[in-house]
Structures are given as C-alpha cells and as structure tokens.
C-alpha cells in the first residue's frame, strides 16, 4: 500500500500535455478513485483507453493509475482482485473464495421467483384449488418446472385430487406463502378492485 498511500498524500496533479478539456485538472489520487469506480460499475471489462476517453485525459496516466490500483489490490490480498481480461480491466472475486460464494448464491432467500413461477403462483393464489390442466388453460403455457419450484419452496401444497377425468392433483397456496407475503389469511390478497381503484387514476 505504501506507494499508493504516498501518491494519495502528495496528491500531485499530473500534466497531460495540453489535452484536458474539462474545467479542472484531475489529481492522480482522484484519477485512481475514478478509474476504480468506473471499473466497478462497468458491465464488462473496461480498457484504459475507454476510461481516458471519458475523462479526457491521457491514456498513459490512466494506465499508471490502474497499474497502481491492481498492485494495491494484490497487496491488500482481500476478497477482490483487479484483473486484466479481454483487453480490459475488471474487479472480480478471488478464486479461493468461490466455494463460499457458491454456497451463498445457493442459499439466497427464497422470496425470489422466476417470471414463470411468479405467474403460476399468481394463478394458484387467485384460483385455488386449481389443477395443472387448469393452470395451463389460464396461463397458456405448460408450467411443470414452475410447479416443482413452488413446491420446493413450499409456497404451494397439494390439496387432494379433483373428481374429474384423470383425477388431476389440485394445488393451493401454503402457510409459508402467507408468511412470505405477510398475509394473515387469503382474504388479505389484493383484489382486482384494489388494483383498479389505483389504476383508475386521478379522482
């Protein structure tokens, strides 16, 4: 960290030979901060040139700043690394921690649903008890994996069989569903009328 820290203390401005168009010069420490922020927000590896273009500074200055940043990350030996990949720079997690990251990603809260699952859950919530063919009829799409997901997440439960051809299983929402959506009982589900009141616009 020493070199970087020194740079920050001295905070000397670098002098690109007459290419600055901004109102003021960017100090070296600032340039490092901005480069780090840009690399962080970019959705793909970002090159020193792109950063230089945005900031209207010399590419060499950006390269120096990123080089220092990368060394800092290296020296820090924290959870993140700054790496050069596909012609650009990227902040990423260190591979040693991938096991824990995977464990976390798997354990994420179950209130998250894919769109298909959400739709299926909506149909089941409002039409329960309802069978798979009926859900298909309403959604217009098969939803076998959505039903499995919802069962896995314990948001729905089987509610016996319907006395009709093939005796299909009927599904309804579970107690877990009420808990996750903060409902006392099903009567607390918003109704189409609640929504229309709002959609009705200005009173």
């Amino acid at each position, binding site marked *: 960290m020493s070199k970087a820290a020194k740079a920050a203390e001295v905070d000397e401005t670098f002098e690109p030979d007459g290419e600055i168009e901004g109102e003021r010069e960017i100090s070296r420490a600032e340039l490092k901060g901005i480069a780090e*922020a840009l690399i*962080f*927000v*970019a*959705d*793909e590896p970002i090159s020193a040139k792109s950063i230089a273009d945005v900031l209207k500074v010399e590419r060499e200055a950006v390269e120096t700043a990123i080089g220092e940043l990368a060394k800092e990350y290296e020296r820090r030996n924290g959870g993140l690394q700054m790496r050069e990949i596909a012609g650009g720079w990227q*902040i990423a997690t260190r591979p040693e921690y991938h096991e824990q990251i995977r464990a976390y*990603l798997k354990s994420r809260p179950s*209130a*998250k*649903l*894919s*769109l298909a699952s*959400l*739709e299926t*859950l*909506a*149909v089941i*919530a*409002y039409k329960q008890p309802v069978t798979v063919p009926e859900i298909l009829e*309403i*959604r*217009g799409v098969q939803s076998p994996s959505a039903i499995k997901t919802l069962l896995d997440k314990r948001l729905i439960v089987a509610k016996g069989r319907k006395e009709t051809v093939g005796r299909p299983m009927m599904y309804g929402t579970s107690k877990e569903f009420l808990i996750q*959506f*903060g*409902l006392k009982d099903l009567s607390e*589900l*918003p*109704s*189409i009328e*609640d*929504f229309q009141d709002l959609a009705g616009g200005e*009173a």
Partner: protein
Amino acid sequence: MEDTAQTELAKPATAEAKPEPAPAINVSGAKPEIAPDREGDQLNVTLGEFEGPLDLLLYLIRQEQVNIYDIPIARITDEYLRYLNLMQELDLTVAGDFLVMAAQLIELKSRMLLPRDPLAEVEEELDPRADLVNRLLEHEKFKAASQMLWSRATVEQAVFTRAEIETDTNNPEVTVGLFDLLRSFQEILARHKEEVMLEIEREEVTMAEMIERLRNMVRSAGELNLVTFFERAGSRRGLVVAFLSVLELVRLSEISLVQRETFGEIIARSASPV
C-alpha cells in the same frame, strides 16, 4: 404551539427573515390575481395548481399573514372561495377535495358565529378550529418530510453499485411483492383476451393449407389459371399467402408456369408427369 408563536408569526413572512430550506415545495403555485407578487416573496406566481385544499389554505394563511393558531376563519374562507371561483372562471377543474374543504370551512365559519358556551372552562378544547389547525400543521410536517426525502434521493442518485455479474444473469429472478402477484395474474388474463381475439382474426388459410389447395386444384384440372387461384384467396393476406404458395411449388418443381402470349394469363401445370 405556544403562545409566543403569535408574536413571531405577526412578522411579515418575507423570505429573508429566516432561512427557508424548501421554497419550492411549500406551496406549489398560485394565481396572480389573488397573489400579487410581493417583494422578496419566494412563491413563484405561476398558473400552477395547488396540490390540494390544505396547500391552498396554508398559502392563504401565509398570504394574509395570519396566525395559524388563530385563523380568522371568515376571512380565510372568503379568500378560499374566491380562489375556487377563480379556478372555475378559468375553466380549471376544481377537484372534489377542494369542494369538501369549502363545505367544511363554511360550516366552521357558522360555528364560529355561535355564542361560546359560558360553562366551558378550557377555551382551547372548544375551539372549533382546532381540528383544522392540527391538520394543517400535520400536513406541513409531511411536506417538510417529503423535502427531506427528496434531498436523500438526490444524494443516493450519485451512488452507483456494480453492474450485474454473471451469477445474476444466469439466474434471472424477480423479487416478489403482493402486488406483483396481482399484476401477474392480470397480465395473464389480458394475454388470454388477446389470444382469443387473434384466433378470430386467424380464420385465414395458412401457408400449408394454401399449398395443399393449389396442389389439389392443379392436380384435378391438369392446369390452372393463376388469376382464378388468386381470386379465391380472399383477403390481402390470403393473396400474399397464395402468391408464396405458387413460388414454393415452383421451387419444389411440383408445378411449372407457362404463359401462352406476352402479358397473357399465367397457367400453372403439374410439372412431374412431363
């Protein structure tokens, strides 16, 4: 709150008197006719509408420089009604909420005219204006709170979090709230309606059916005048499908097209037996 408020409030409400953190948000606009621009008054005189009757009342109270804890109801009511008239004259729709408040003010005005109950000990408790004053004060508080939220949001807008990383995109998920469920359900219903409508439109012949029809017509008659075929196609879309079917069968070498004279009719013939 306290009695001292009165003296404080008696001062003209000039903007310089005290730092006002939220000039824009306190009163959203006023009518020039009833709000002559005063020197140093930060209220921009625009043809804007008030957010609601409470905003208008607060504006009038400030305009008339009266004590909010001792509102001269008769005067303020008159001003309020004048404003409503003005809005109507200008053909601005007066929202129901404004009319409800007008009725309440008139009622309050008449109650203020009634002689006070001499047996009442604590005057304040009987002040018919108390409810209104509390509502106004409460309302002001929330206007200030919304100003605070506004500044917070502005600061937050300068903070960015990282872009989505792969794990997110691999796993497109949405966080679900109660209204998402309802919205989702309504979308399904809407989609359903659309599908039914599409089906009605789609009585028309498909490409495969059109090809089959062309095949049969050529086969049964040996040859076929394309004009006859096209005439049967019906709609514009049918025509396009018919034309494409001819091209398709030509491409498959199932039919060949002949023309007996320049600009003459085009005849389709079964190509295979030749």
